[in-house]
């Protein structure tokens, strides 16, 4: 049985439909991500789970109990906010211990639990500092520790890494996932960053305009997008309209043909393998470990990703090539 069940959830702000008929079932201990662009409704769903917004209709059940109408204080849900929301007047230790103090735990117990969770998030030694004396990454770890120390049933994270630089994001991402696995804590993570979603999640719910476009494992979402929106949002899919698909591949589709850039194999221009297409390199971009090419073939421009193994691998603009695309790597999307 699902630990967190959301059924037919709807929410409107005036004329704007923020959430429309959202259904989700999340197992206990699962790490789930709501992924989508700004305004897609992912934060609104999160806020309804937390109790900060009331749904217009639908139910939210935790452990079989309907929590709609329950005050946020009573839900046993921990939250990490995008802007940390640390209490500026309290030290790190006091911030983390705030929830325990509200629960009237003895001082010794508060001190012990705070020390344990500070060790977990690698913040030991910073107890007496104030939020303004910490870096962004440290503040986020305080926010995480503060949410974890009260032993919530569910942990919600609302774009917690978006204000941080790339290096800190990657490091914190791993840390959050490690902690979640260790504690087996049911977690809902909201982000617009597909890399975060793909690397952290057991399952991803891709949202658009208040609805769930697709949900599944990272592999499912990435390799088998079911809609044009998901294909455009995840990765850098080549999305060929029906006319281009017919011209290039000789395939008839009613929607779009989605092809992953890394699934297109680049062969030398002299290759005579069957089923290959002639093409010309029009542009290349170095993305670190990947080189991204724009290759024109039969009037259609395709993105092609290759590993950047060595300098000699680089194909200059104007180089003729042959492209091989397996039918298994082509996917029609609505």
């Amino acid at each position, binding site marked *: 049985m699902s630990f967190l069940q959301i059924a037919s959830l709807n929410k409107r702000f005036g004329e704007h439909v923020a959430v429309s008929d959202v259904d989700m079932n999340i197992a206990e201990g699962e790490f789930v991500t709501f992924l989508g662009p700004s305004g897609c409704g992912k934060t609104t769903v999160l806020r309804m789970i937390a109790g900060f917004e009331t749904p217009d209709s639908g139910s939210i059940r935790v452990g079989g109990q309907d929590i709609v109408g329950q005050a946020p204080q009573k839900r046993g*849900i921990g939250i990490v*906010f995008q802007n940390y*929301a640390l*209490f500026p007047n309290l030290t790190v230790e006091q911030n983390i211990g*705030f929830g325990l103090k*509200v629960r009237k735990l003895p001082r010794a117990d508060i001190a012990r639990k705070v020390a344990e969770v500070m060790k977990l998030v690698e913040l030991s030694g910073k107890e007496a500092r104030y939020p303004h004396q910490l870096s962004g990454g440290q503040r986020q770890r305080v926010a995480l520790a503060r949410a974890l120390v009260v032993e919530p049933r569910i942990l919600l994270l609302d774009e917690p890494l978006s204000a941080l630089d790339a290096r800190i994001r990657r490091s914190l991402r791993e840390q959050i996932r490690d902690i979640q696995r260790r504690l087996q804590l049911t977690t809902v993570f909201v982000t617009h960053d597909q890399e975060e979603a793909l690397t952290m999640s057991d399952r991803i719910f891709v949202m658009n305009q208040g609805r769930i476009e697709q949900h599944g494992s990272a592999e499912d979402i990435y390799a088998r997008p079911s809609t044009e929106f998901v294909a455009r949002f995840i990765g850098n899919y080549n999305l060929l309209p029906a006319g281009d698909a017919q011209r290039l591949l000789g395939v008839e589709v009613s929607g779009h043909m989605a092809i992953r850039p890394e699934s297109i194999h680049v062969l030398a221009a002299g290759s005579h393998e069957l089923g290959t297409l002639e093409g010309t390199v029009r542009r290349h971009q170095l993305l670190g470990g990947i080189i991204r090419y724009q290759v024109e073939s039969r009037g259609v421009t395709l993105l092609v990703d290759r590993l950047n193994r060595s300098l000699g691998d680089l194909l200059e603009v104007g180089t003729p090539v042959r492209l091989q695309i397996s039918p298994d790597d082509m996917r029609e999307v609505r």
Partner: protein
Amino acid sequence: MKRNGTRVGAWVAMIVGALYFLLPLAATFEFSLKMRRDSYSFDAYRVVLGDPAFRATFGYSAMMALLTIVVGILLVVPTAYWIQLKLPRLRGLVEFITLLPLVIPAIVIVFGYLKLFNSSSWLPLTAHERSTDFLLMASYVTLSLPYLYRSVDTGLRAVDVRGLTEAAQSLGAGWGSILLGVILPNVKAAVLSGAFLTFAVVIGEFTMASLLNRPAFGPYLQLIGANRAYEPSALAIIAFLVTWASMGLLQVVARNIHGTRAETSA
């Protein structure tokens, strides 16, 4: 060249403005030192400070000011907080209401009180001293609203009220804990600035205290002014010093807390 001209102009304006305020003050101070014939002395100050009526009325007004501040904070802080958090559309209306005491003369307010709460009415607050004190305090709270509400509202706008509230709620805090443990400490400077302004207003208030016949500092100032020569000047200087001390304290407190907030928001 133009820049130097602007700077000189600014200095001239500042000096003229300062002289406009400081010269009368200096003249008042100089006059207050002339109680003893042919020499300067603090005799007027000695007479004033030694007057039991001065101590009694100043003490009474100081006590009323403190009560006004406490009641005002209890009224204004939760109201401003709730408006900001849940009812932002009512902000304009509430601001208008809090500005009414600046527009309605104090004498009109007091006559209204006397009509409503006189000894023959349904709630005869003016029938007894303590209840009249309560009425005076309520009128002071009304008078201080424009300063206290604006100050607290400005302080709340500088803080992420919604974020802090939601964080506290998620940790299990009720409204009392949120207000006392999270919101109030973060608007301390604003509350204090409103409190000091309230203190300054109440200490010198005359109309309400006089018409309600209470032994406050304002009527005492007026009485001394009507009957003595040098002591009113001394009293005026003392009143200025009290006000300036309040403002000075406000600056010190606000600077200390402002420094913390500037680092927090970085």
